[in-house]
């Protein structure tokens, strides 16, 4: 099956406030899709709906052709935008836990991503820099070799080298040809080359859903497209 994720006519609101309206898109095998849009537009909500952590008010989600379920979670890795790992754990403890917890966990992939992060073995996660923690998080996700990797604002607030490490990890995953990635980001610096396809959210709706290369051909760059479409 080449379609890993499909969303159809998704609506979602909180306390009477409509956040997402009639969102539909799909993600094919081996693709990297960028979910763009300003802060607060509902990107995080949409990602949580896509992986089954939130239910839509209306519409349908299909992961691997099925409604979201715990079986699907074995094949999906989701990195939320706020820290989720135990703050007191040390690096080796985190890797040990991952090895025991996940059905698939390739330690070699994790070590490759962590190389250069210079994480002291004895430091607990709460003592790590933002960049170090981000690299640990992405390593834990990618080493699971998920068929669908969903990352919520993975580049926000990172230094240049950590951003590059994140981008390398994402490119490494897509290079396998069997892993797809859905990434939300509000900022395009150094990462715009990563995407096959772009979905732009504006006012809770899909304002654009197009191949990144054709966006570059049509608008001049992703940045230019973003500015033009957000202005209206």
């Amino acid at each position: 099956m080449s379609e890993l994720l499909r969303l159809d006519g998704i609506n979602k609101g909180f306390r009477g406030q409509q956040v997402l309206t009639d969102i539909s898109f799909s993600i094919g095998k081996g693709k990297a899709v960028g979910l763009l849009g300003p802060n607060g537009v509902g990107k995080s909500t949409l990602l949580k709906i896509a992986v089954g952590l939130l239910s839509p008010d209306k519409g349908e989600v299909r992961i691997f052709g099925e409604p979201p379920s715990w079986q699907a979670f074995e094949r999906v890795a989701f990195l939320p935008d706020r820290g989720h790992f135990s703050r007191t754990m040390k690096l080796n403890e985190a890797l040990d836990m991952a090895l025991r917890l996940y059905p698939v966990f390739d330690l070699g992939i994790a070590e490759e991503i962590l190389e250069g992060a210079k994480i002291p073995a004895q430091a607990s996660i709460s003592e790590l820099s933002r960049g170090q923690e981000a690299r640990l998080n992405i390593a834990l996700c990618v080493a699971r070799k998920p068929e669908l990797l969903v990352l919520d604002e993975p580049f926000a607030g990172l230094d240049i080298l950590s951003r590059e490490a994140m981008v390398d990890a994402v490119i490494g995953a897509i290079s396998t040809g069997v892993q797809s990635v859905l990434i939300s980001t509000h900022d395009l610096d150094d990462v715009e080359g990563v995407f096959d396809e772009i979905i732009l959210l504006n006012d809770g709706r899909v304002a654009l859903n197009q191949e990144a290369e054709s966006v570059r051909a049509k608008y001049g760059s992703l940045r230019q497209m973003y500015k033009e479409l957000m202005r209206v």
Partner: protein
Amino acid sequence: MESIQVAGITFKLDPTKPFYEQIVEQVRGALARGEVALEVRMPSVRELAQLLKVNPNTVMRAYQDLERSGLLVTYRGQGTFTTTKQEFIDNIRQELADKAIREFSKAMSQLGFTHEQVLALMEEADYQ
């Protein structure tokens, strides 16, 4: 974007144009100028994607395009190499030379020079 050197090829991608076309053009240019030799091992799709920070599908598409025109050859299990055939290189050199002359002629004719005047200027010019 900063320029990246790999296998004798200098890549510099402009985010305002499709990356796929730029990768193809820059490999062709490097081959035509002799900056990369025959039968040189190219980086893998993954390596080049990570170096250039672009999607591996984009690099793959560029490699496939270059393979179709014979400039790159992929051997199963061994990787991708530049062509073994000098004639393929001669063909792109000719193609790029034609393009350079067309652009030059167009610029000169826009400046109002006739063909004869251009030839005379070329004779006089110290364009080394």
